[in-house]
């Protein structure tokens, strides 16, 4: 039940991350055409890519990648450990990730509440988009918190949180 809801949230965020990547490609290509062919660059494109598209791509995409075990780990000792010990290593992995991502969540909340309370936004008249800063920073705690929720689930079930050691050729997780 909780698993299914979490999965939906992860997939929805993952979809936005994929769209952010596609938007990055299109925006940069448009910028090249606008500058070189039309002679009128989109002055806001660098800010858009760094503050929105990169942040959305990474933070909203992170939950899916953790669920699919996309984060590498070193197996050399693990493979030689007794079978009974291995689940504890998996729990340690999920626990480590959980602590780290909760810390990132807290940092993101500190940042977002600060910039939202101050009402910060790039001033009109500068080349950047004049969107409130929190619309960018809020993606940090959002993505980190959803990832942390998945890690809680991994901690409970004891499933590994890293690339399965298949030794086979490319095996990419899909965004559904």
């Amino acid at each position, binding site marked *: 039940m909780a698993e299914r809801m979490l999965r939906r949230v992860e997939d929805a965020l993952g979809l936005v991350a994929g769209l952010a990547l596609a938007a990055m490609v*299109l*925006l940069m290509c448009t910028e090249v055409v606008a500058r070189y062919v039309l002679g009128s660059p989109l002055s806001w494109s660098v800010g858009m890519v760094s503050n929105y598209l990169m942040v959305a*791509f990474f933070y909203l995409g992170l939950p899916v990648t953790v669920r699919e075990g996309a*984060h590498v*780990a070193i197996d*050399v000792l*693990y493979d030689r450990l007794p079978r009974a010990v291995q689940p504890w290593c998996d729990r340690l992995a999920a626990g*480590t*990730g959980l602590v780290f991502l909760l810390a990132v969540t807290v*940092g993101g909340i500190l940042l977002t509440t600060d910039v939202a309370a101050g009402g910060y936004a790039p001033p009109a008249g500068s080349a950047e988009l004049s969107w409130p800063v929190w619309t960018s920073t809020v993606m940090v705690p959002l993505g980190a918190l959803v990832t942390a929720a998945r890690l809680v689930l991994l901690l409970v079930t004891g499933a590994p949180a890293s690339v399965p050691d298949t030794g086979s050729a490319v095996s990419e997780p899909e965004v559904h």
Partner: protein
Amino acid sequence: MLVAGVLLLLLVLLLLRVPVGFAIGLSGLVGLISYGGLPVLAGFLETVPHSAIASHSLAPIPLFILMAQFVLLSGVASELFDAARVWVGRLPAGLGVGTTVSGAAFAAVSGSSTAAAATLAATSIPEMEDRGYDGRLANGLVAVVGTLAAMVPPSIILVFYAILAEASVGKVLLAGFLPGLLVTLAIIATTLLLVRRNPDLAPRGEAHPIAVKVRTLTAVGPVLLLFALVVGGIYFGLATPTEAAALGALGAFGLCAARRRLTLAGIRAALGATLASSAMILLIIMAAFLLGYFLTLTRVTQGLVDTIGGLAAPPTVVFLLIAVVYLVLGAFMDQIAILALTVPIVLPVVEELGFDPIWFGVMVVLLAEIGLVTPPLGLNVFIVARATGRPPEQIFRAVVPYIAAMLLLVLLFTAFPQIVLWIPETMGGS
């Protein structure tokens, strides 16, 4: 003492199979809070997660990986390898040499070692393994070839060095050219030597008549076109290196369309694979900033450099000790972070010793690149491992001969700095 404890914690977490990004991140947290308590930790937690990722200069990583995924989807990659297989014929390790050369060319353009490694891992390793290459050799080779990106212009990292060192950007970029070429040759020579000692690593192909060879060239055209789009975009001033990555991704998408390989499922898979690789890389980079700032605060680097700089030893010996420091840092930190942290401290010492700042820039970048494939934190090795599902420690073992070859080059450039300085001094103008 504190630093040793934190690095030990990192090592233990890594050995117990904690994902690399999580392990670095937690070690960074522990380090920062033990160093300065909650205020220090809170300050860096508020800034690092957002500003490390909200970075235009990281954009080429997902963009070049996406380009590689579309090249795979178009099916042109395997035809290209067919062409390479037919043309190299019975040459020993022909495909490996071909991969090195084409990889070096791609790395040269991409300007990002991590993006280059991820791209090559997706496109060339499966093909090499299909042709009977030893998997470890193929993985190791690709991890090493990716490191060429920072040496051959355009190179964001060499420009960054030049700005930090206040040296001529043009000369520093030119200085990377010949060493980049020599590193390429050293990688090829190492591959040939390995295959000669153990012919099972890479099978010989068969000879083909010229008519067959010419027929395979149809696959080369589209790839050359794509290559021309990216390289030409940069060299003719159409696009910045970052934008060229986007042009490449769109071009590869167009290639899929032209070859009628575009399906919704295919596009989704390409985006998903790009997300998986990029998220892993970006998480490690973000976490490495936290750990890096902890190391900076403790001033271990500065202490080391001061100690080494104060030694009454011949300049070459002192430089080699500094080189060891860079190798160790490269094993734990992001290259840009290493440069920002060390160049202002180390460069005056190095200049005092009588070394040229342009030469030093090339050496620092070369050493940091070697760090990208050295355990325990060789980012390029993790990227390749991520793409192929092979255990990182196998790849670490496979790159050892290549590291040895690159270290020999470090010694060569130290003994004969003219090799590095020749081009910038003869062509660099004023």
